[in-house]
């Protein structure tokens, strides 16, 4: 009988082109997503060395980070110029490089345009059992479909463009098992924030994590993508969820997914990928869903997580002296005092979007809270940024845009937006934002901006009350 294998081992082994004596493997890459920020230097490297793209047919380019989320066409159907010359230059570079190297390119006004990690699954470009890379750390996202997906730097982008492979050493494996059932008001985002709090920001370093258990199995693909998306926030190389009927139902009929007999063959293969009984992970962490409440961050690392019912911690209460120091600096930056109830913290800005939480289900969850309500007077800026043109279209067909607009929120064009503020969407210095994005780092949403990471429903609740709020108080 063959040795039982984990999902990760099966995908890894299926992609080994060559293995060297020291254990380094040449791994074949099935899918490469390219955006404008981390690719210009890679294309330039190819040009200088006179190299071509080996497999343009496995590569898809789409702009997302720099694009303004305001209207892209004026009243006459003309392109609205991008005000920031550096952003414009970077976008133009991708628009030029993609055709020069024979790569398919989705332009900024195409309905298919969106955040790379929303576009990949939505188009059926991302498939179970594949290796997927992108010059973006949130590439782990696609692991929600059962793909081995991870972020790479620009040198590796160039390496994949030139060779369709990467030189890699195998990571360790970890199982994060979430047992039980989620309570009311608790979403996939709360689960992954909670996991990050439990593991710490470096708890997954050197590992590929497979998320398992009843909670994960019960999640939609949108929810699984949200969880895997933030694998990097607890340090993991990649996150994985075993593909199942939920996955196949999501992918069937998507434009780039296999069709007909090929679909059946693909599904049969994907079913064989699940971790075998008796396979051993290097580490196992079990989490009980009953311990997970609507969650929120208080500091400047995604590990700084509390249930919304919690209070701002006292730095001296941490056992680790370096964490005490980090917590003091975080609280100073965040302008928070130990002992403050999280629900007493006022916010001025709301951001609903990002590759973590901008899919249709996220927008539905936010709209369900906002329906028939208005944003609080102290909310100065509140934007909803759909993950793609197709998500936007779907939301409008369901009337979600009207709910947001009637509540006083702005309904924007798709892109990365205020998650990292490379485009004009930024949070002003010293102000707080309840944000559905993935990072609360110092200066992430703009210099001096103070980020509290939350779920879409919690961001909507904060919009209504003007402070961090337990969404259960508005929905039950």
């Amino acid at each position, binding site marked *: 009988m063959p040795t039982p294998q984990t999902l990760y081992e099966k995908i890894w082994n299926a992609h080994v*082109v060559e293995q060297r004596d020291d254990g380094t493997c*040449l791994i*074949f890459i099935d899918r490469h997503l390219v955006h404008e*920020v*981390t690719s210009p*230097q890679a294309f330039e490297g190819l040009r200088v*060395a006179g*190299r071509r793209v*080996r497999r343009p047919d*496995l590569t898809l380019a789409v702009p997302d*980070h*720099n694009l303004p989320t305001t209207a892209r066409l004026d009243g006459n159907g003309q392109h609205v110029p991008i005000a*920031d010359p*550096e*952003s414009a*230059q*970077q976008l133009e*570079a991708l628009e030029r490089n993609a055709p020069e190297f024979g790569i*398919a390119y989705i332009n900024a006004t195409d309905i298919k345009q969106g955040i790379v990690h929303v576009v990949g699954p939505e188009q*059926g*470009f991302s498939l179970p059992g*594949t290796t997927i890379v992108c*010059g973006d*750390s949130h590439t782990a996202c696609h692991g929600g479909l059962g793909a081995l997906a*991870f*972020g*790479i*730097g*620009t*040198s*590796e982008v160039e*390496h994949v463009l*030139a*060779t*369709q*492979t990467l*030189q890699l*050493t195998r990571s360790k494996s970890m199982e994060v098992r979430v047992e039980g059932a989620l309570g009311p008001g608790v979403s996939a985002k709360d689960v992954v924030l909670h996991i990050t709090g439990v593991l710490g*920001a*470096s708890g997954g*370093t*050197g590992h590929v994590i497979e998320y398992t258990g009843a909670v994960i199995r019960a999640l939609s693909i949108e929810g699984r993508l949200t969880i895997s998306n933030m694998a*990097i926030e607890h*340090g993991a*190389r990649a996150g994985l969820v075993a593909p199942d009927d939920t996955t196949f139902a999501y992918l069937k009929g998507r434009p780039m997914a296999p069709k007909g007999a*090929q679909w059946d*063959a*693909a599904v049969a293969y994907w079913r064989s990928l699940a971790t075998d009984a008796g396979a051993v992970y290097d580490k196992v962490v079990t989490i009980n869903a009953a311990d997970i409440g609507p969650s929120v961050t208080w500091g400047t*690392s995604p*590990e700084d997580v509390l249930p919304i019912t919690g209070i701002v911690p006292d730095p001296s209460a941490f056992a680790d002296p*370096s964490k005490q120091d*980090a917590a003091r600096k975080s609280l100073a930056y965040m302008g928070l005092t130990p002992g403050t109830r999280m629900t007493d913290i006022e916010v001025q800005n709301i951001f609903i979007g990002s590759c973590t939480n901008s899919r249709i289900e996220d927008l539905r969850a936010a709209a369900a809270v906002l329906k028939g309500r208005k944003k609080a007077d102290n909310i100065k800026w509140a934007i909803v940024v759909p993950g793609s043109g197709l998500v936007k279209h779907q939301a409008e067909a369901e009337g979600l845009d009207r709910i947001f607009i009637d509540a006083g929120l702005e309904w924007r064009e798709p892109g990365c937006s205020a998650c*990292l503020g*490379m485009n004009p969407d930024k949070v002003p210095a010293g102000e707080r934002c309840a944000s559905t994005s993935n*990072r609360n*780092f*110092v*200066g*992430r949403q703009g*210099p001096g901006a103070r980020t509290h990471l939350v779920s879409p429903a919690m961001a909507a609740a904060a919009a209504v009350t003007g402070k961090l709020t337990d969404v259960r108080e508005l929905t039950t």
Partner: protein
Amino acid sequence: MKPISSVNGRAYPLGLKNVDTDIIIPAPWLKTISRSGLGKGAFEALREVPGNVFDDPAYAAAPILIAGDNFGCGSSREHAAWAMADLGISAVIAPSFSDIFSGNAFKNGLLAIVLPQAAIDRLMEVAQTDNIHIDLETQTVTTPFQDRFVFEIDPFRKHCLINGVDEIGLTLKSSDAISTYETKISAQQPWLTPNIA
């Protein structure tokens, strides 16, 4: 990549844990289409604080940085490695690094050296007054006070760093193996080629 076998000089005693790549180089600096000139934006938020180590004349042009656990966490931006190299940093010593940063550092000949916290604490002390020496061949970090710390490094990475190997060039030598793999997999899993057009 330029070959690198040793680093000698002063070290910025930063010591912070979870130094993320947004701290190393904030997003507005990522709009460049070049690899150079990012040193100006390196550690921008930290440098706004008076008395920060980066602007302390005692550490001017130091080639080494000492940090806490999980250095380089967050974004995959290689701009973080480029910015540090542009600032004149050739090596970072920390108890752990994020996987992506460590790969990016390697590709740029920037040493990411892992030592236990006790060694970091000692080096933070030495860094206040004296030089630190890193030797890649013997995999050691030493000080003028007879401290000697041995570090681990992947043998392939060590070889590439010391010899300044062009990794793409190296992989291209395996072109035939890649072609063989492609032929095999397109027969076994024909649905793997996406319908992009």
